[in-house]
């Protein structure tokens, strides 16, 4: 089966980088790219007309929330009302996580939304806050199944940790530790790798995901990395997300998080550190100005930093900076990490926030952020068959409609994409040669019904958070509404 896509602007891959072919073509044969160039002389079975549109390699969402995102409840609020009470964290009383039908709704909704947001490769992360020491054990299998059937390319994992934060009766934040629980969950996580790696025509892959650096003992992390090397899968972990975590690590180990991870052999090309905001180089870290030793270490080891600008900007925080990390030789792929999971908006904010941070309009460029969601994402996953349109690469394609008014006259298609478009302009998404988003919709899915069910699940979870909040504050205080509701 051969499909020819007649662009608009085709983003081909030539001489080791992307290159623009105006009115170019891409020819897909089964699950791979056959040809990219100004024209094609051979025969084809089907043609997709993408004139006036951007034909891009599929995008890699390196940190994609794969459940209905509770974080949005905390928008505009200073103290997200997601604190667990002692009874919940220590005694397992209460339940705020999705199970059964809600879990399935959550998985389906997330994968649909991710595909529509341009992710042909989804590196999933589920929000751990509502769960105990690990996410529900059927979460990764459900995601693998839903994504597999919808035709997505996904990396699934079972997340685990040894520590859970809660608020005691005096309002003091504490960790409840259970290393045995973490070890059991780690064993299960390995079985998920064994069972799902390569499933669904190899569209489903796996990784190991100790959830948070500060919630995992160093010995556990060392063993996780050894296991990942043996199993040949990447490791993904939240690291240096908050100043508290940074200083807690200094206190406990007399090392920064990066130094500690390096000392246990955790850092290499197959490690993805998500966020990594706070290092010796951060102005609020307390380290001397100009101390970039942590960043050097990350660059030398080849570890990847997953960057999620929007979710941090919503808190008034940002990496310092996307371009600076890259210039130091660190690979910095991009992920959404919050709702909505629109990779175009995410690229835009990675660019804008970087310019502001660096006081430099020539940093945080469209080129850098586009590379981040394509070739750099692929590199973080150890792959050279995705994130590019070149013969032999996977047939993963995103087509963006450039005809709406807000796109305007196009001088440079990549700048137009990054600075003027949004996820709603994504018209077609192809994964492994199959169309998974057509005319902006996922075929076979009743999206209105899905939105209704997802909204119900979201509001159910909000109710559970309010009911269990240890402060006893009502919903309108914990999650204030923008305006009074009549």
């Amino acid at each position: 089966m051969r499909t020819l896509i007649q662009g608009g602007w085709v983003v081909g891959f030539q001489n080791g980088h992307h290159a623009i072919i105006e009115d170019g073509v891409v020819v897909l044969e089964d699950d791979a790219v056959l040809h990219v160039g100004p024209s094609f002389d051979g025969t084809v079975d089907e043609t997709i007309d993408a004139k006036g549109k951007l034909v891009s390699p599929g995008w890699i969402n390196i940190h994609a929330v794969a459940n209905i995102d509770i974080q949005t409840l905390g928008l505009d609020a200073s103290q997200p009302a997601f604190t667990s009470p002692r009874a919940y964290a220590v005694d397992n009383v209460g339940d705020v996580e999705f199970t059964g039908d809600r879990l399935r709704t959550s998985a389906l909704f997330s994968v649909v939304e991710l595909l529509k947001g341009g992710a042909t490769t989804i590196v999933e992360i589920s929000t751990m806050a509502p769960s105990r020491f690990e996410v529900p054990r059927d979460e990764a299998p459900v995601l693998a199944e839903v994504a597999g059937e919808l035709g997505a390319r996904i990396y699934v994992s079972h997340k685990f940790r040894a520590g859970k934060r809660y608020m005691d009766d005096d309002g003091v934040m504490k960790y409840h530790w259970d290393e045995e629980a973490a070890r059991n969950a780690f064993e299960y996580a390995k079985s998920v790798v064994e069972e799902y790696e390569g499933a669904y025509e190899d569209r489903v892959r796996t990784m190991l995901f100790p959830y948070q650096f500060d919630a995992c003992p160093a010995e556990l992390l060392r063993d996780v990395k050894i296991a990942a090397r043996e199993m040949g899968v990447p490791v993904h972990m939240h690291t240096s997300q908050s100043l508290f975590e940074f200083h807690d690590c200094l206190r406990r180990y007399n090392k920064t998080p990066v130094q500690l991870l390096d000392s246990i052999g955790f850092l290499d090309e197959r490690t993805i550190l998500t966020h990594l905001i706070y290092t010796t180089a951060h102005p609020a870290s307390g380290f001397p100005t100009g101390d970039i030793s942590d960043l050097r270490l990350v660059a030398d080891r080849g570890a990847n930093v997953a960057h999620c600008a929007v979710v941090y900007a919503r808190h008034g925080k940002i990496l310092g900076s996307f371009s600076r990390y890259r210039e130091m030789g660190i690979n910095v792929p991009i992920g959404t990490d919050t709702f909505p999971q629109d990779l175009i908006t995410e690229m835009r904010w990675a660019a804008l926030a970087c310019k502001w941070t660096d006081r430099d309009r020539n940093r945080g460029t469209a080129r850098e952020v586009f590379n981040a969601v394509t070739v750099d994402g692929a590199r973080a996953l150890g792959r050279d068959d995705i994130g590019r349109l070149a013969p032999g690469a996977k047939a993963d394609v995103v087509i963006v409609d450039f005809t709406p008014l807000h796109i305007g006259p196009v001088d440079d298609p990549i700048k137009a994409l990054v600075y003027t478009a949004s996820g709603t302009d994504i018209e077609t998404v192809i994964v492994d040669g199959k169309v998974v988003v057509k005319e902006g919709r996922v075929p076979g899915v009743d999206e209105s019904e899905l939105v209704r069910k997802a909204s119900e699940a979201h509001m159910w979870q909000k109710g559970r958070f309010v009911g269990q909040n240890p402060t006893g504050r009502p919903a309108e205080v914990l999650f204030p509404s923008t305006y009074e509701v009549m």
Partner: protein
Amino acid sequence: MTKLIEGGTVIGFRNNQHVIIPDGQVVYEGNQITFVGRGFEEEAAERVDARGKLVMPGLINHHMAFGVHMQLFRQDAARRNYFTSGIGMGVRPPDADPSVGPTSSDWAASAEYAMATAMRTGSTTFVMVPNYGGHPYRGRVGSDQDLVDMVAAIGMRGYLALPYMSGGVRGKPDGTIEWVKRPEQGWDGFEQAVEFARRFDGAEEGRIRTFLFPYQADNCIPELLKASKEAAAELGCTLKIHVAQYLLEFYEMIGRTAKTPMQFLNDVGFLGPEVSLTHSIFTTSHPWLPYPVWDDTDIEIIADSGATVAHCPVVFARSGVAMHSLSRYVRAGIPVALGTDTTPHDMVMEMRAASLMSKLTDNDSTSGLAREVFDAATLGGARALMRDDIGRLAPGAKADIVIVDLDQTHIGPVAADDPIKALVYCANGDDVDTVIVDGIKRVEDGELLDFDRAALRERAEAFNERLRANVAEAVYQGRPLTEFYEPAFPDWEK
């Protein structure tokens, strides 16, 4: 004829603020809203089912660049010296022939493109801000009447002005910059502007309004500012000016007057509730300036005067520049309005940028609230125009209504929790479904009615081509612009 919009989440207006009315009703007759709330049971000639949708006041685009903006082209690849400081212009030699380049019909296409995009994405009112470099603006799109007719044909509520100033900033080929003084040009432009304002205010059943626009604080002599202020009082119109937009301007004014740009305007007697101060970024509170961190003198001056700050975060974020900050200004008592000073003219995108940049600059998740940016896009814009009949859905207000489709996978669950947060943090201008201006439906199902979108797009592309060619010729001696402004990726090698 009574028209009823029902079933949607309505943003109503009670006790001087917006309220959320789930499953609410909006009724309008002619160009006026007659009912907002629940329980309307009378007959209606037309009923619109807005279930799953947000029904909100039309957005007020208080500083709309009147055309396709060249910024995107220079994006990521600009000269550092003054572009980084916020100003964005080509270095045009003084002897360049102004008659070469886009024709008046090209400029008209560019302006129509801006208006059509703004209306399509939820703006019902705009304040016109032409890109103006010291030559007379009059005649750019044809005669004065042509300009008004063009706006009338689009159907938006438009605030129009012929800008003027007593000189201009000129970049020279060696990279230096000078402020050229041409006071007579300022007076001449002023006279034309007053005549224009008097002639067209209230045209098209009041949809066309006028204002006076001495263009830039650093390029207007004090006498011209004073005369503008007096003329505005006589005409009963508002005033707009660019001020404190970039660092070089700031230091030029310090050097010239020993005052900050804001203090200069204040001492001239220009400030007041009828004045809109565009950008107002480099005030004493800005961290790039050498004032103590607690020095809010300029912010206090603005707040005391009652003037509005017109805030356009997107165009500056692209340069790495931000106002410090929307919330700080709002909470100091300054009315803030929003505008799209660049392509795309999408107020939803602008609201999100206003929110996120305020949070970033304040290092605070409770800065740049959805409430604050939505207020700015509605009530703030109305306040700047001295009106209480737009920017809100209330009986007696104009029937300027926008309906946004919330029933979508990138919005739905957040909308179930809070429709305004969903709008600001999740939606795009593209999600606007219906736009009604002055009781007339202009956008339905996301398409402009009776409008040839493809033809406009072609005309705008042609304008862009000619403008680029003209800039290459006039500014860069005919060398290709890509030599100066590197594209994101190179062309494919054949």
